[in-house]
């Protein structure tokens, strides 16, 4: 890409120190461990991972709430670590944050008008009429109408979907270049979720801003993001355009994840799903080599348990941090790689029939 990316993360590590008795350093929680990526202007991406995989720590580092232990985040070519005072404040105005729990994110004692006026005041919009104009515009943009009625309401008087719209309006009011939405719909009802996601995606397209979703739900991102980063135990294991990732998952972890997810279908009840044994590792003492190797059905002894896999590129624009995708490995007839995880033998196929055993 010729233009500088909006956000660039290089070798990002966010570790949280563990101390005993307040001063003995006894290790660290490696929440984000050597993560690199770029976000282009006007792009919608999703960071997908299970709880505890470090996805929230990652976005908080992007927001500048945590300082990276190692590595750096560059915004429009400038390192975030170098920013202090006014420059850091200016960066924060360029990033909007949509929290997971809308009710928890809104101060209960302020009405909608004052909630939305707050960021404007903090960032120096002194003129009251100007503030009012922007507040009304923001509410109209998130389709909280009639605006007059909403302005005087307190958060508890709004439904969950309406609260989330206020949170989105607050994230947008300073006209950010990047909006980070951390599980924006996981607290909302199924029927409201789609509305909120459509709204976010629509605003992202209209304004040409960069949108980064953080979610654990692969099924929702298909329609609302262009690129997906799959995280596992603090690392990005796979990144690809949405359709490519969902139709041709490469990393064994992504394949396991997709095989475990279901679309509503009555036939699901009669088959067992293939689930890799074990659980995500501790981030204090992660396994050596590939972090998924203890659970991986295709782990290669002597390699996966020793060497950390770098990012390979098994398909154009499709990165996978797995030794299976080392160039030359695919020709090895003993380790066949299927391009479509859904059709690979034993993976989300007919599976075992449990209904038979009960008779």
């Amino acid at each position, binding site marked *: 890409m010729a233009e500088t990316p909006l956000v660039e993360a290089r070798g990002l590590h966010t570790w949280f120190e563990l101390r005993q008795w307040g001063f003995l350093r006894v290790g660290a929680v490696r929440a984000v461990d050597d993560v690199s990526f770029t976000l282009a202007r006007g792009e919608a991406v999703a960071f997908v991972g299970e709880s505890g995989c470090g996805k929230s720590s990652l976005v908080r580092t992007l927001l500048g709430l945590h300082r990276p232990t190692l590595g750096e985040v560059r915004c429009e070519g400038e390192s975030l670590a170098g920013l202090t005072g006014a420059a850091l404040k200016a960066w924060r105005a360029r990033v909007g944050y949509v929290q997971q729990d809308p009710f928890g994110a809104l101060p209960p004692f302020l009405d909608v008008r004052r909630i939305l006026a707050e960021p404007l005041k903090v960032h120096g919009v002194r003129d009251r009429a100007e503030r009012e104009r922007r507040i009304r515009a923001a509410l109209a943009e998130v389709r909280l109408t009639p605006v007059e009625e909403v302005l005087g309401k307190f958060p508890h008087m709004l439904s969950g979907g309406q609260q989330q719209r206020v949170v989105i309006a607050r994230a947008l009011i300073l006209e950010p270049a990047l909006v980070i939405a951390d599980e924006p719909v996981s607290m909302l009802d199924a029927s409201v*979720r*789609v509305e909120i996601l459509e709204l976010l995606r629509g605003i992202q397209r209209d304004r040409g801003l960069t949108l980064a979703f953080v979610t654990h739900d692969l099924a929702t991102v*298909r329609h609302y993001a262009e690129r997906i980063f799959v995280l596992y135990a603090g690392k990005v294991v796979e990144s690809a355009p949405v359709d490519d990732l969902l139709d041709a998952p490469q990393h064994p972890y992504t394949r*396991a994840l997709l095989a*475990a997810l279901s679309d509503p279908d*009555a036939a*699901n*009840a009669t088959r*067992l799903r293939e689930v890799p044994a074990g659980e995500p590792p501790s981030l204090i003492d992660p396994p050596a080599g590939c972090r998924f190797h203890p659970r991986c059905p295709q782990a290669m002894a002597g390699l996966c348990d020793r060497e950390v896999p770098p990012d390979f590129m098994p398909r154009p624009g499709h990165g996978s941090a797995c030794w299976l995708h080392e160039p030359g490995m695919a020709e090895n007839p003993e380790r066949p790689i299927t391009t479509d995880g859904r059709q690979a033998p034993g993976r989300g196929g007919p599976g075992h029939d*449990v209904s038979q055993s009960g008779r």
Partner: protein
Amino acid sequence: MAATTTGFRAEEPLLRVEELALHYRTRGGAVRAVDRVSFDVKRGEALVILGESGCGKSSLARALMRLLPRNLAHHGGRVSLGDTPISELSDERFRREVQWSRMALVMQASMNALNPVVKVGEQVAEPLRELKRWPRRRALERAAEVFQCVGLPLDFMARYPFELSGGMRQRAVLAMALVAEPELVILDEPTSALDVLTQAAIMNVLKEIKAEQGTSFILITHDVATSSELADRVALMYAGELVEACSAVRFFGEPAHPYSRLLMKSVPRLHERERPRAIPGQPPSLLEPPGGCRFAARCPERFVRCAEPPPAFDPGGGTLDGVGEGATESRHRVRCWLHAPNGGAEYG
């Protein structure tokens, strides 16, 4: 389909619920969280109760288990389990004879409710010691059996809850519910706090228990995709009422109620490119629910008739409300005037 216990006809439902109601008293008036809900569950069958938050599905579980709040305004209806009319029992007899031993409940996030200072094995064995007065050793032996059933390593019996991950604690809670061999287990959002892979693993455990032991399940959830992992039948709740109850095949394939159809369209699907669509509007307040059909305000197919409350119709044949006399074999119920025989002319 079920491994039926002796003495009962296979066709006789295990749980029969008629006109169940649970209303809460609040400053604003009575909240009708569960209203005239009727359904039945056969032996070895899994019924999923699906609904959005605030539709009364957790209240339904509480009403069945008699875990009633202090601000109770009204609790009514007839419930029978096997041959026992459990709604007739006194609280004391219900607690002694039914709760936990015949009907167990796994509540939402109950994995966080384990006692932190008691070993997991002891906690799982506790219902047997308390309810059945089993000696400690015998109860622990039974607990070990259940541990294997739910896929917990035996050495976890001697661990404390904080030494277990969320998924393992959820298995322990499940083991606790199963330990007294109840005929029916009610699961209220058993996996919603867990990861995708852990969730799939727990659903596998439930499927195996259902197939091997013939336990009946009521799974309460808001997650349509997960619900299809266990469901033989689906009952959809909306604003305190059951709007549709039918077989899983029918529900996930071709539901009859307009709300069911819209809900299915709002579910994002992994392997489909069609975009999900939102349902416009919001559920009504349960303080003063609309007099007619409660979904009418959001329904694209509403007509004049919807101003009156619709009874539960059988879209196949057309019978009266409930599961009493005249109920046909199809067991499909839809609370919608669109499915009234002859346009609902004989009702009024």
